[in-house]
C-alpha cells in the first residue's frame, strides 16, 4: 500500500516536471521563432519614397510638391464665391462665383502637365511640373519640384481693344517648390516664385514680382487635414493695391476624390492672379469661401 502511494507521488512529481519542462520547451520555441525571424531576408530600412506629403496637387491655391503618378488624370474644379462681407443682399458672397476647370495628367511619376480655364478674367493657362528630387526615408530630406506656367488673359477681346497684342495677354510663372514631410501628420513647403506679366498698368504694377510661398499640412484625422498657405511678395509698385494671398482650408478625402474647402482673400487659382493681383484684405473680412474638388482617373499603369 505504502509503496503504491510513494509510486504515485513519484509519478506526480514526474508529471509536474514534464509540465515545467514543457514550459521551458515553449520558451525554446519562442526563441526558436526569433531564430527563424533572423533567417528572413528583410530588407530592413531600405530607402523608400516618402508619400502623401500633400494630398492634393494644390496646397490650397498654389501647387504642392505632389505630382500625379504615371497615367493618372485629374479633373480639378476650383470654385471661389464672392466676399463674405459683401452683405445679405449678395447672400454673403454666394451670388458671385469664379470657377477654374482644369485637367492634369501624369506623363511619368515625376512629370506632370496641366491645362485650365478660369472664368474670372477668361484666362487660359497651362503648366509643366517636374519633380527633380523625391524625399526618401533615407537620403533626400526634401522633395524639390520645378514648376512653370503660362496664363493667357482673353479679356478684353481684340474687337474691344485692338491695341492689345497677343504677347500682352501672357504672364509666366517660375517656381521651385521645396517640401518636406516631417512626420506622418505634418508637412511644410517653401516656394520661391517669380511672376512675370508682359503688360501691366505701369502706374500701379511691376512687370516682375518676386514672392515666397509657404504651405503646410497638418493631418487631423485619417481623412481630414488642415492646410495653410501664404504668399509673401518681396517687391511691388509703391501705388500697388495688391496684398499678400492668405488661405486656410481643410482637405477631406474620399477614395478617388479630394475635397478642399477653404477661406481665402484671392479670387483666382492661377499663379499670376493670386500672387500678384489679390486685392482683398483677409484681415478686413474680404474673405472668399471656396472649394477645390478633384477626381482622379487611372488611365493606364
Amino acid at each position: 500500500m505504502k509503496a503504491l502511494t510513494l509510486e504515485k507521488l513519484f509519478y506526480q512529481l514526474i508529471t509536474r516536471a514534464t509540465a515545467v519542462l514543457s514550459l521551458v520547451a515553449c520558451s525554446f520555441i519562442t526563441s526558436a521563432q526569433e531564430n527563424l525571424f533572423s533567417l528572413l531576408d528583410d530588407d530592413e530600412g531600405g530607402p523608400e519614397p516618402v508619400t502623401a506629403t500633400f494630398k492634393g496637387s494644390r496646397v490650397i491655391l498654389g501647387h504642392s510638391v505632389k505630382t500625379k503618378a504615371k497615367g493618372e488624370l485629374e479633373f480639378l474644379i476650383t470654385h471661389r464665391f464672392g466676399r463674405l462681407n459683401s452683405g445679405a443682399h449678395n447672400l454673403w458672397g454666394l451670388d458671385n462665383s469664379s470657377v477654374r476647370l482644369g485637367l492634369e495628367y501624369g506623363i511619368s511619376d515625376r512629370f506632370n502637365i496641366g491645362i485650365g480655364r478660369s472664368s474670372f478674367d477668361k484666362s487660359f493657362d497651362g503648366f509643366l511640373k517636374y519633380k527633380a528630387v523625391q524625399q526618401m526615408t533615407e537620403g533626400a530630406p526634401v522633395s524639390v519640384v520645378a514648376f512653370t506656367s503660362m496664363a493667357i488673359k482673353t479679356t478684353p477681346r481684340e474687337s474691344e481693344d485692338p491695341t492689345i497684342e497677343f504677347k500682352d495677354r501672357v504672364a509666366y510663372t517660375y517656381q521651385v517648390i521645396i517640401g518636406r514631410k516631417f512626420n506622418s501628420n505634418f508637412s511644410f513647403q517653401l516656394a520661391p516664385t517669380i511672376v512675370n506679366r508682359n503688360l501691366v498698368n505701369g502706374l500701379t504694377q511691376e512687370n516682375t514680382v518676386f514672392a515666397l510661398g509657404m504651405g503646410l499640412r497638418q493631418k487631423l484625422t485619417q481623412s481630414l487635414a488642415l492646410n495653410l498657405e501664404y504668399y509673401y511678395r518681396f517687391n511691388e509698385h509703391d501705388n500697388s493695391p495688391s496684398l499678400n494671398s492668405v488661405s486656410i482650408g481643410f482637405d477631406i478625402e474620399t477614395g478617388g476624390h479630394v475635397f478642399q474647402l477653404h477661406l481665402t482673400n484671392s479670387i483666382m487659382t492661377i499663379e499670376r492672379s493670386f500672387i500678384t493681383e489679390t486685392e482683398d484684405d483677409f484681415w478686413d473680412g474680404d474673405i472668399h469661401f471656396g472649394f477645390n474638388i478633384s477626381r482622379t482617373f487611372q488611365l493606364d499603369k
Partner: protein
Amino acid sequence: MKIFTLILALVWLYRPAIAQKYKSQKSTITFFSSAPVEDIDSSNDDASSAFDIETGEVVFSVPINQFEFKKNLMKEHFNEKYMETEKYPKATFAGVISGYDSSASGQQHATAKGNMTIHGVTNNISIDGTLVILGDKVTMESEFIVKLVDYEIEIPQLLWKNIAEEIEVTISFEYKKI
C-alpha cells in the same frame, strides 16, 4: 511507461537542435475586398517566411508598402490612411503548424496557430491550409479572412461603400531547405 513519457519529453526538448529549416524562395500574398462601389485587389511578392519542418514553427514577415494596386491612389490611401505604414511597416505571423506528417511526401492538410500582427495589433489565430512536401521543397497555400475591426483598421464613414469589412487573403509560399 511513465518513465517512457519522461524520456519522450526530454527527446522533444532536444528537437530544436535537430531542426530542419526551410526558407521561402518565392511568395505571393493577394487580398481581395468586395464592396458595393468597387472591388479592390492587391498583391505582394516581397513577403518572406521561414519554416522548421520538425517542430512546425513558422514565421512570416510582410512589408506593407509592397502591396501593389491597379490604381496608384489606392496604394497611397492603403498605406497612409488604413495601414499607417510609416508607423507599422510590417505585418507578421509567428506560430506553429500542426496536423501534418513531416516524413510524408505530397499534399496534406495542416493548421497554423499563432500570433498575427497587422497594423500594430496582435491576434491569436488559427488558419487552415495545405502543405506540399517534395524533397527539399515545401509549398504552403492558404486562404483566410481578415476582419479589419480585429486589427483596429478604421474605414471612414464616407468610404464604407468602397471597402469591405472583411478581406479575403490568399497566400502561397515556396520554401527550400537551408
